[in-house]
């Protein structure tokens, strides 16, 4: 058991348990939010033009 744990500790982990997995998720959320805000900006311009 100890040997197994030692072996697995030496191996890297899959994406979901990595900090950069969380960073990827956060970035996707932020970029999507920015696009939604950009859409509102576009709509605001259209509203003023009407």
């Amino acid at each position, binding site marked *: 058991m100890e040997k197994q744990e030692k*072996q697995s500790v030496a191996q890297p982990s899959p994406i979901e348990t990595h900090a950069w997995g969380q960073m990827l*998720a956060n970035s996707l959320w932020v970029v999507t*939010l920015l*696009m939604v805000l950009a859409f509102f900006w576009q709509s605001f311009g259209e509203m003023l033009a009407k």
Partner: protein
Amino acid sequence: MMSLTWYLLGLLTVASGEGLRQVNLRYKLDWIAWGGLFSGIGALLFCIAWAVGAYLEGVPRAAAMGLLMFGLGGIVILAVVSKYINARLEKRVVIAAGTPAIGPAAVKSTTVVSGPLKTSVAISPFEKQIWSVLGRLAYLSLVIAFFLGLMSDGKDYETMLHLKFPEAKLTKLRDNPTVFRIGAEESGNYALIQEGQGYGGPFVIGLRIMEDAKIHEVVLFDNKETPAFLDKIEKANFPAQFAGKHVTDDFLVGADVDVISGATVSTRAATMAVRNGAHIAATEYFKLKPTWKPVPWNFGLGEILIILMFVLAFVPKIHKSTPWKHLYMVASLVIVGFYMNASISVSSLSGLALGFIPPLKEHIVWWTLVMGSVLSVVLLGKNVYCYRICPFFWVEWLLNKIGGSGVKLSPELQLRSRYVANACLWVALMLVFLSTYPGLGNYEPFAMMFSLDGVGVQWYLLPLALVGSFFLSSFWCRFFCPVGYSFNHLLSWRRRILDKFKTKEESMEV
């Protein structure tokens, strides 16, 4: 700008090369992993070049398609390769340890490897209070915006008509609908302003009818349609087909009026306005007997299938047992998505709030999905649309099955994402209520997904929502969808009202 893109792409290529070297040092890649990573990264770099190039040329639709085809393609390849590398890794662990690395032991070991990721945080009572105050202010501002919008709505169509026919002498004959006589009293020439109801709101049209009782000109004065649909109507020069038609004609879409493909609802709304105007002129001013056919019920295969889908959404067994669930998913994608393109959007809901209700006879699909879903929330307390009928949910579900990664937002963002989504819904509703133009708040990527209709920035939301759901389950539904959040608000109001009634009844009994 393009040279800057090439420069950045060069930097990214070098960085990717170094990244690949590091990955190789860490994981000892074989030729399959090398090939996969190489093509995945290549597709992503190509996607950036394509998207920027298309954007600079002013074709956001092509940019979005590039992002989807090559971006999502690249990510799918990278996800499959990462799974392959992980599988090889587990194999190595098994060989090295002599025991299979599955079950809780393996899970425990991987958690040890990654180091502690923060999994739970809480919002401070002060911040909670701030959000609560902001929520109340949001409701108040929406009510104010609603009435402000209604008060300021109403364009001066008479002036528009005067501008359209500057040389003519216009004499107003009646209001609602507004009718003018053009020229002298016995001229027999009329100009009418009429409305037809679309999904987004009234479609206002000006008609010029001359003494031969024929339509000579149709002008689109105002509309609240989604810009992508209006674009199709304008490109097809839809009003031109009415010129020369007699006021006693039927004006029925699909019979004597050509439908504009992909803009059926807008076509029906505009035709309704022309029909109403022409028939009023026929009976009131030309004293002709009504010989036209009544508007038939628009009830075909699509309507039957949508009603069936809606009814089946209430059957729990279908959504629990695997073959039925999958069949329902295919039906939702094919029927609600690609065949009818009838997804509910924030513009449908806000249009309903503004009283823009299309006639049942011609819009059974709208009544079934929008009215049916809202009524099932209000009367039964059940949201049968999200996670069941909505085709975009199933697209996300499928993508997440392929991606299968369990990445999560950081707990801080997860906690606040609900407030941010509600803030987005608030902005959308403010825009709609102040302008009384439901299309302005329509930031969902549904129409782009199923009929490739979109304007400007909307095109970039679709690839982002799809890539997001590839990594995070129901990415759009959970973090952004205004329809889901609107239904949640309705459900919470319903619960509060019922609770109040219950407390009142209990206090009466005591």
